[in-house]
């Protein structure tokens, strides 16, 4: 099995919702596992809302997405025109302080890195390329 789908969504919070709905349909159309059906929407929420809030910060732009599935992997590539930002270099989230001192910053990317088998970032032609891949057979 090999399939890809590309789409563009507005770089807004409603655009994030459109992207997640489109992935839901992709998931359904290709019979992807339950593990993919929650991991990727969650990861899209984290990465895209970060681009919208911090990367674009109100500037009108679209975000390009490619969903793909083959016999081994499910993957999503996210391409945006915001300023260069490599989420993989963000400081790790605080996952051990007591309640009073705990801050939620950086949790999103920490979750994405741990829920995916591979994440990659590249800056090319004034665009950010972020890719995440998950192998359904590894665990679900």
């Amino acid at each position, binding site marked *: 099995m090999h399939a890809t789908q590309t789409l563009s969504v507005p770089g807004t*919070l409603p655009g*994030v*919702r459109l992207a*997640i709905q489109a992935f839901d349909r992709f998931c359904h159309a290709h019979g992807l596992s339950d593990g993919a059906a*929650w*991991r990727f*929407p*969650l990861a899209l*929420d*984290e990465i895209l*809302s970060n681009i919208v809030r911090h990367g674009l910060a109100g500037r009108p732009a679209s975000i390009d997405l490619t969903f793909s599935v083959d016999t081994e992997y499910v993957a999503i590539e996210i391409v945006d025109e915001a300023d260069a930002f490599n989420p993989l270099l963000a400081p790790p*989230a*605080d*996952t*051990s302080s*007591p*309640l*009073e001192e*705990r801050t*939620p910053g950086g*949790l*999103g990317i*920490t*979750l994405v890195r*741990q*829920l995916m088998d591979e994440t990659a970032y590249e800056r090319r032609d004034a665009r950010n390329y972020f890719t995440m891949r998950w192998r359904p057979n590894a665990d679900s």
Partner: protein
Amino acid sequence: MQIAEARREGVVAVVPAGRIDTTTAPALEAHLNGLLAQGTRRIVVDFSRVDYISSAGLRVMLIVARRMKERNGRLALCGFPEPVRQVFQLAGFLPLFTVCESQDVAIGQLAGS
């Protein structure tokens, strides 16, 4: 996301259904803040109908847990489906909360406190 609510033995059980993410977390936060503003001091959040929770939802749970503590209230979470359990674990959130198997167990714990 939809949010249902049940009251038993002086405890309010909040039952969100669907996805808790950037889009829906504000509604959950508003609901829980509304309960706190009414003076509710024993709250169970039942996750059994939740598909997943993203960091936006974790942030809400962190804020609500702090507010409950400041008010000497008690908060318990229950009914974690596997995606919710995994996210709480990866975020290091499990030690911050009382997590019970079921709503009955959670209500039992808070009602007796």
